[in-house]
């Protein structure tokens, strides 16, 4: 919210104006009201990852078609679109999750800056890539281990053995995930004893402990209640100063509240990309407008 630049094409104040105010009661705010949507960030943010003419195939089924899309640094990019449009598929390309299953095929490039690494190139080692790019799944998936060991998992993979270093890093990660206060007295207890919202924050802590450059979030709050959701949203907004965030969400309010850029996808294609305020208030495409206003279908 600290960004200075005003929306370049601020939406006309549809529901404002004294004449209307006297005639009708104040309308329920919608996403087209400028105060619900984050102001557009400066367009000049450096690009952290660039998707270029990218297509993806599940064996013979094409799930993404010629997608080109930037993910900017210190910003949250939301992927929205109707079910089955390929949001999860795109997200999972970033950490090569598709490699786990036979027959999947990447076409095109996803460049990770600053080193201009083509993420989906065959010669790129997915393990070293996953060390730089963390992911949080739709359903919390803590390991059958203690809370401590869950967060320690990635650190141990990176060869950190010293007890004191592990403890220090785990505390920081749990604090970053806004979970430390709730678990500091029971770090040795099984992670399955936590509530769903706590488990999801644990998964975020686990991802953050690795100090990733990019954090992928696939509908991270879809299984959570409104309070847990708003905690995680606050958390995500805080985190964007340190890590590039890509989030898939079905919740238009959520996309509007927390993201800086929004990409609208439909049937495996990118339909529209822009600053979130633009996409929500002044969409260029009819489909986008219908979707963000809930008239889709």
């Amino acid at each position, binding site marked *: 919210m600290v960004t200075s630049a005003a929306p370049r094409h601020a939406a006309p104040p549809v529901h404002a104006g004294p004449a209307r105010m006297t005639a009708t009661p104040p309308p329920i705010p919608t996403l087209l009201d400028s105060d619900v949507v984050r102001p557009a960030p400066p367009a000049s943010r450096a690009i952290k990852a660039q998707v270029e003419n990218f297509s993806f195939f599940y064996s013979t089924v094409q799930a993404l078609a010629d997608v080109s899309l930037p993910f900017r640094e210190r910003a949250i990019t939301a992927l929205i679109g109707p079910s089955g449009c390929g949001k999860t598929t795109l997200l999972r390309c970033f950490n090569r999750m598709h490699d786990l299953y036979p027959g999947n095929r990447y076409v095109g490039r996803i460049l990770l800056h600053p080193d201009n690494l083509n993420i989906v190139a065959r010669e790129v080692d997915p393990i070293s890539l996953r*060390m730089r790019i*963390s992911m949080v799944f739709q359903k919390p998936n803590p*390991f*059958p281990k203690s809370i401590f060991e869950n967060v320690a998992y990635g650190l141990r993979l990176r060869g950190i053995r010293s007890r004191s270093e592990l403890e220090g890093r785990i505390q920081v990660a749990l604090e970053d995930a806004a979970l430390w206060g709730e678990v500091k007295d029971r770090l040795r207890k099984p992670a399955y004893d936590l509530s769903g919202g706590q488990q999801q924050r644990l998964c975020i802590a686990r*991802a953050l402990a690795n100090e990733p450059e990019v954090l992928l979030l696939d509908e991270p709050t879809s299984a959570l209640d409104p309070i847990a959701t708003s905690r995680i949203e606050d958390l995500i907004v805080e985190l964007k100063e340190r890590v590039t965030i890509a989030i898939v969400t079905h919740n238009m309010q959520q996309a509007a509240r927390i993201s800086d850029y929004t990409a609208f996808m439909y049937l495996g294609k990118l339909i529209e990309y822009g600053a979130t305020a633009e996409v929500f208030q002044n969409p260029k495409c009819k489909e986008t407008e219908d979707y963000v206003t809930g008239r889709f279908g």
Partner: protein
Amino acid sequence: MSTILSDNPVSGGIAGSRNGGLLPPLRSRSLLGRLAERFIESGLLLAAAFSVLITGGIVFVLVSESLPFFRHVSAREFLTDRLWTPMFADPHHGIMPLVAGTLTTTAVALLVAMPVGTLIAVWLSEFAPSRLREVLKPALELLAAVPTVVYGYFAVDFVTPALQAFIPDLPTFNMLGPGIVMGVMIIPYVSSLSEDAIRAVPMLLREGSYALGAGKFTTAMRVVYPAAFSGIASAYVLAISRAVGETMIVAIAAGQQPNLSFNPLDPAATITAFIVQVSLGDLPHGSIGYQSIFAAGVTLFVMTLGFNIIGAVMRRRYRQAY
């Protein structure tokens, strides 16, 4: 436009038909329907009761037949005497030599079957191509289908001589050879059940591990194995029960000579080997010597029960709610 919203939760069809009155209104179920349900229920109850009854019957026979023995031999002698010679002129009735034989051969068998079975299960479910798995799994299960008599002579005629190449003073009859062979026999008990448990671990858990940068082996050992542990523990318990109860291999290859020793290089008799030896022999029914097999049977039953209880506790302790 409308097709892509196919999994929109609002499906007007069902609600519409309800309101339209196309379905008949809910009625109380017919008498016949309720009778049929009653019948099925009591049938199932009967089947369950039957298995409990049989177990109860076995326990009853074991206990009642061993009572004459325990009238003659004190529990103290039974548990502390270091000799088991019920057929001798100067009989001793200490069960511990047989227990030692049983525990030692079981331990050797488990040292083979648990690591090998678990590794096979992990390899089959996490690493093997699915085509190969389809072939290998049933092939492996054949190991458990070989008659135990065959395994017994395999132990005497092949495994023990092979071991003697490394351990020159290994006697012809010993606990190591049959223990190893028994272990090979129960590998499929461990691997098959463990593989089922491992495959039941949700992919989401594995993906969580891969996403943090773990490799295949780390994921299998540090995430999948612990997640499946409650099922794998059941496999271990079944393997233990199978090893404790195995008769033929040890009767043939371990020497049938009660020996209070935990050294697998020694010859020994197990509880089961003793039972089969006496019941095939010519001791008169009703003699203390003959009744001793029921006392041995009770001991075997108590041991197996103990292992199963430990197994149940472990399962509960490690059960995962994915």
